[in-house]
């Protein structure tokens, strides 16, 4: 086994363990009630605000964004938390300074949640104007895009960290 392969396997093992730990942290009912649901509500408020700016006249109640013809409910799996957990595990598992990791997590998670607001807004619009396409976009397209964005952000962060390490070691 080459040293590179060993490093990659070590990273994947650390990543898998951290993923399970972080997922276990956000899953319990008290965390869901006191952290995740309020966060989903905040996402609904921002997304509802964007939709209203676009002239959609929606109301937000809890995690539901409702208009006259269509409504979406921001449940777990649609709030981007799963991509945040993924990013936290990947960045924490990668060898870098804790400062670089924290900055990476903050920046990447902010971008992913920004993208998630675009997902919510677009799904509302698709559901209202192209309901036949809603299922495919809700399930396959946007879920994959959110995780693809998380992977790209992680890869971008690793190349930045590697460059910084290369400069520091000169």
């Amino acid at each position: 086994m080459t040293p590179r392969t060993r490093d990659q396997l070590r990273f994947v093992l650390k990543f898998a363990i951290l993923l399970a730990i972080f997922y276990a942290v956000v899953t319990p009912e008290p965390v869901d009630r006191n952290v995740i649901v309020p966060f989903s509500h905040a996402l609904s408020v921002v997304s509802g605000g964007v939709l209203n700016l676009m002239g959609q006249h929606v109301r937000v109640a809890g995690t539901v964004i409702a208009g006259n013809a269509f409504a979406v409910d921001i449940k777990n799996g649609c709030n981007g938390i799963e991509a945040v957990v993924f990013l936290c595990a990947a960045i924490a598992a990668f060898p870098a300074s804790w400062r670089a990791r924290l900055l990476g997590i903050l920046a990447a998670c902010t971008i992913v949640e920004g993208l998630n607001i675009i997902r919510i807004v677009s799904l509302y619009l698709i559901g209202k104007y192209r309901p036949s396409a809603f299922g495919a976009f809700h399930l396959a397209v946007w879920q994959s895009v959110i995780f693809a964005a998380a992977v790209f952000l992680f890869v971008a962060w690793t190349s930045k960290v590697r460059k910084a390490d290369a400069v520091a070691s000169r």
Partner: protein
Amino acid sequence: MLSRAVKFIIGFVVATVVWLWISPLLARGMAAATEPLLHLDARFRDAQLSASESMVSVDAPHGTFPQTKYPADQLTFNVILLVALFASNRKPWRDRNIIAFLISLAIILALQPLALLVTIETYYSGFTKWGETQYGNVATNVWLVLSMFWRLVGMFAAVFACWWVSGGQVES
């Protein structure tokens, strides 16, 4: 990074179209592969799985448990991300990349029947009256947590891990 993103988008679009087209085939394969796994659980010894379009049906010929249907495409769409990630590598048509992709695809396809098995157990343990008499609280919660973990994070993490180990990340 821009070139990688463009190749990723092309791979993503092509993979989505192909996935929509082959979803019924994937569902049939999953049903066939999951049936013997489900028979390992004595409660489902006579279970019969069949697929129609993207729906997998679980039938009990002797009525020992309730019938159900599940949209199998909810467990197979991670192949879209897999194709797109390998398409985004620097030389996607190089032999090494294609072999790594095929090995990764085999791993992901092999995990899908396990995911369907977990989903079926989750449904029966947590969402049927029959399950209340057949499963304990711990078993019900374990199946539910496994199912949610796989559907929300695990199915994508597995794709990412395959791609990462294949060395795709260092080619940008």
